[in-house]
Structures are given as structure tokens and as C-alpha cells.
């Protein structure tokens, strides 16, 4: 291994809870004449969750792609773990992405690879981790999403909900400290949705993962915001109603017409009298 560059140093530094890990400052993005984001600013703090709401086409997926550096803004600044990603080259962006897990809206599983190869992709292909360890890690992560018996299947042999869970497993195998979920529960039955929500909560509260969740399902959004995971004496993890401090750590962000129309906690959202927000919640 070569000596770490200043960029790598900055990225790998452990962030204290409450320190900003993703920052958008006056971001503007348009596809041709179609302006998607006009002036978007927000901060994601370490260990907390931001839930993005907004109509279809509001630019929620676009924001996640901007964080990953898959798209570049036309104006404004984006920081991830202290690095200005809108100015980085693709090569340097790879280092930023080492700490970012992404669950794509349609899963985006590699359909030529098995579930095992999908989930372990980054460790198999882009790291020097010994194969035995990767196998073990893949089994462990698939166990969390309750898919261990499907390890040798192809993605096309799975149901929609199972594919979604494989995508979540793939995003967490390499233990990133930030995970971005694009509509992780859309189109799933309530039981499976809650399993996925609980997984998001556990990663946040037990592993300290900072997360951004894009969703249309308010029920899931409130579940993620108003529950927390605690480890009991016997080591079991339990989902319980969130403490007031936890509640304050989950913020809702509503996108509308390319701007942030609302930002606040679950109770702020419930209490809001804005007609659009009320319509959205009904």
C-alpha cells in the first residue's frame, strides 16, 4: 500500500457524533432546460438520519446520485466526509465511495452474478480481503436480511422484496459509515417493509451508520423516525419507541419545485399546517 494522501486522511478520520458528514450548499442541477434542483442546502450529521419526501420526479434520487458523485451539480457545493466531491475526479471519488453504501431504487443488482457475488461484490473485486473472510461476511450480512438460503440463486430467481433486501445487504457488507436508501420499502408488503425499516434502525443505532432514506411511504418514514434499537443485557437487539434525543436526530426534508419546502422532526411534520404537507400526509 502506498502512503495515504491528504484526501484519504481526511476521509478516513473518525467523525464525532453530530459532526456533518454530508453537506449540500446551494446546489443547482438541471437536465437541459429541465431544472430539477434550484437551491438545495442541507446537512446530514454523523449518526443521524434524514428522510427525504417529495412527489415523484421531485429529484430525490438525483440528490442521492449527487452525494455519490454519479452526477455533478452545475452550481453549489457538496461535501462528503469533509471532501468537496463536486470537484473531485472519478478516481478520487472512488475513495469517497468506500464509505458510502447505496441501495438503488430498483435494486440495481448485477443480474449476471449470484446473490453471493452481488452481496460480496466490493470485497471480492475491490479489496484484498481473504476469500474465506468475504464468504463469512456475506453469510453474516445475508443472515441479517434473512436470505441465507438464497445465497446461490441468481437475482432473477428472487421476488421483488427479496431483491430489495439483497440490495440492502450489498450496501452494508463493506461496513460503510453512510448508507443511502432509495425507496427501500416501496411496493413491499407491510411485514417485509417493517423488517427493512428495523434493519435501517439497527444500522443507525447499533452500528452508528448515518443514513438518508428516500421514501413515499409515510408509515415507514415515521417508523424509522420514531423507533430506536437498543441492545439488551443478553445481547439481543430490540426495537423500542425512540427517546426524545433520538427523535430529534431524525429529520424530515420535503422537496418541492426544486427547493427544500420543509425540514424538521416527525412531530414538526405532524403538527405542520401547510396545506401541501397535510395533503402529502393524508
Amino acid at each position, binding site marked *: 500500500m502506498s502512503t495515504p494522501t491528504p484526501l484519504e486522511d481526511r476521509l478516513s478520520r473518525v467523525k464525532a457524533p453530530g459532526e456533518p458528514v454530508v453537506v449540500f450548499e446551494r446546489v443547482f442541477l438541471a437536465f437541459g432546460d429541465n431544472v430539477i434542483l434550484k437551491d438545495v442546502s442541507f446537512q446530514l450529521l454523523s449518526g443521524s438520519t434524514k428522510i427525504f419526501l417529495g412527489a415523484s420526479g421531485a429529484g430525490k434520487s438525483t440528490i442521492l446520485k449527487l452525494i455519490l458523485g*454519479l452526477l455533478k451539480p452545475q452550481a453549489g457545493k457538496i461535501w462528503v466526509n469533509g471532501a468537496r466531491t463536486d470537484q473531485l475526479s472519478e478516481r478520487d471519488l472512488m475513495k469517497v*465511495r*468506500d464509505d*458510502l453504501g447505496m441501495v*438503488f431504487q*430498483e435494486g*440495481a443488482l*448485477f443480474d449476471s452474478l449470484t446473490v453471493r457475488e452481488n452481496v460480496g461484490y*466490493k470485497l471480492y473485486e*475491490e479489496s484484498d480481503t481473504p476469500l474465506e473472510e468475504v464468504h463469512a461476511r456475506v453469510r453474516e450480512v445475508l443472515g441479517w436480511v434473512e436470505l441465507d438460503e438464497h445465497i446461490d440463486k441468481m437475482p432473477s430467481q428472487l421476488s421483488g422484496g427479496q431483491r430489495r433486501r439483497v440490495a440492502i445487504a450489498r450496501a452494508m457488507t463493506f461496513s460503510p459509515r453512510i448508507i443511502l436508501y432509495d425507496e427501500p420499502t416501496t411496493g413491499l408488503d407491510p411485514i417485509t417493509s417493517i423488517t427493512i425499516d428495523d434493519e435501517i434502525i439497527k444500522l443507525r443505532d447499533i452500528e452508528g451508520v448515518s443514513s438518508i432514506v428516500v421514501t413515499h411511504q409515510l408509515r415507514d418514514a415515521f417508523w424509522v423516525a420514531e423507533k430506536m434499537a437498543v441492545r439488551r443485557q443478553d445481547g439481543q437487539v430490540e426495537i423500542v419507541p425512540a427517546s426524545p434525543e433520538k427523535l430529534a436526530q431524525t429529520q424530515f426534508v420535503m422537496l418541492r419545485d426544486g427547493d427544500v419546502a420543509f425540514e424538521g422532526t416527525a412531530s414538526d411534520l405532524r403538527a405542520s399546517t401547510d396545506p401541501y404537507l397535510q395533503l402529502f400526509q393524508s
Partner: protein
Amino acid sequence: MPLLTGWAKKGLFEVQEYVKLCGALGRGVTSRPFYFRDIVEQFDAIGVGSLTVVLLTGGFTGAVLALQSGMTLDQFGARSVVGRLISASMVKELGPVLTALMVAGRVGSGIAAELGSMAVTDQLNALRALGTDPVRKLAVPRVLAGLVMVPVLTVISDFIGILGAWIVTVTQLRVASSVFWNSIVDALFIQDIWMGLIKPVFFGFAIVSIACHVGMRTTGGTQGVGQSTTYAVVAGSVAVLVLNFVITKLLITLLY
């Protein structure tokens, strides 16, 4: 007029993007990381996978060439020199061009469809998100395979074509086998063989790099994938024919 400039702009932009891809391919083959497993896989898929179609094309082309040449040569009472016509045209033109066209149809469409569906289902983005450069992982192995396997397939096709011609010459034209082989060897110059080997290298690169370019830039869902597939085959085939003229002209001035 605005329509015309719009087209010109779009065309120029495509060319610019294609040149960028070629630059990225250059970096991809000269610096780490390499994905050896994918390279081996693609050599198999592109090379071994195209064998049947190339064998059939070569064999029947050689055979029909012998029939036609035989008929023409009969007018001059020169049926016995049929081998001369076969070897030169097979090795210099028909072998390389027909092999390349078949590969453009089989491999070009396959690559565009595969990479195209990866593009529209966010799999290319997922690769990037997981720290893999899609050009290195997907395009480099395919282009290397095209670069090496199209010449190899061409040699095989040449050989099978001459074999097909031999069968027709001996059974239909009733020319002695030894006469046929002698005239084949007589007519072949070392320059012809060079020409027959240099051309397919360029064809292989052009077909596969165009298909990768078109595939990776696919937008617009499954419909877009269909369009990309068609476009890759059409652009690949036209590129082969245009390149064939340009390279032939160039090699004639250089070699002969």
C-alpha cells in the same frame, strides 16, 4: 437549417464522447486494476462463441466463390487457375470483411444489449458506487477480446473458405487437388497475408468499442436498449466497410 446544425452538434458530441472512451480504454489497458476473470470470460464469449457462425460463413463463401470463378474462368479456358482467384480474394478481402460483419452482428448486438440494459437499470451506476470503473470492468475485457479474437477468427475463416473452395473445385469443377493447392500457394504473396492480418485488428477494435460506447450511453428504458442494439450493429458494420477501404488504400501504398 437549425435541424442540420442540431444534427451536426449531436454527431460531434457523440464523436467526442467516443474519443473519450478510447482514451479511457487506453488507460484501462496500461494501468491497474485489471479484471482478469472478465478478460478470460470475454475471450471465450467473443472468440469461441463466434466460431460456428464464422465457420459457416467462411466455408460457404469459399465454396460459392469457387463455383463463380470456375464459370468465369471457363470463358478463357483457364479453369485450372481457380485457386489463384480464391486465395487472394479470400485472404485479403472476403475473410476479414465477412468475419468482421458477422462479429458485428453477433457480438456487437450482444454487447450493446447487455451494457445497455445495465445502463438503464442503474447497474453501471451501482458498479461506480461500489468502486469499480465500468470501462475497466466491462469495456476493456471486451475490446481486448475483439482485438485478439477477430484476427484469429479471420484466419480460421480464411482457412475454412479455402477448404470449401477446394471441395467444390475437386468435386464440381473436376480440377485436380494438387493443381488447386499449387495455384493457391502461387498466388499468395507475403503482403497479402499481412493485409489479411492487419485489417481484422482494426475491425475488431472498431466493432467492440463502438458497441461498448453505444451500450454504456443507453437511455430510455427497454426501448432505448432496442435502439442501441440496432445502432451498434449498423454503426459497427458501416465502420467495418469504411475502414476496410481506408486501410486497404493505406496498405497498398505502404506494402506493395
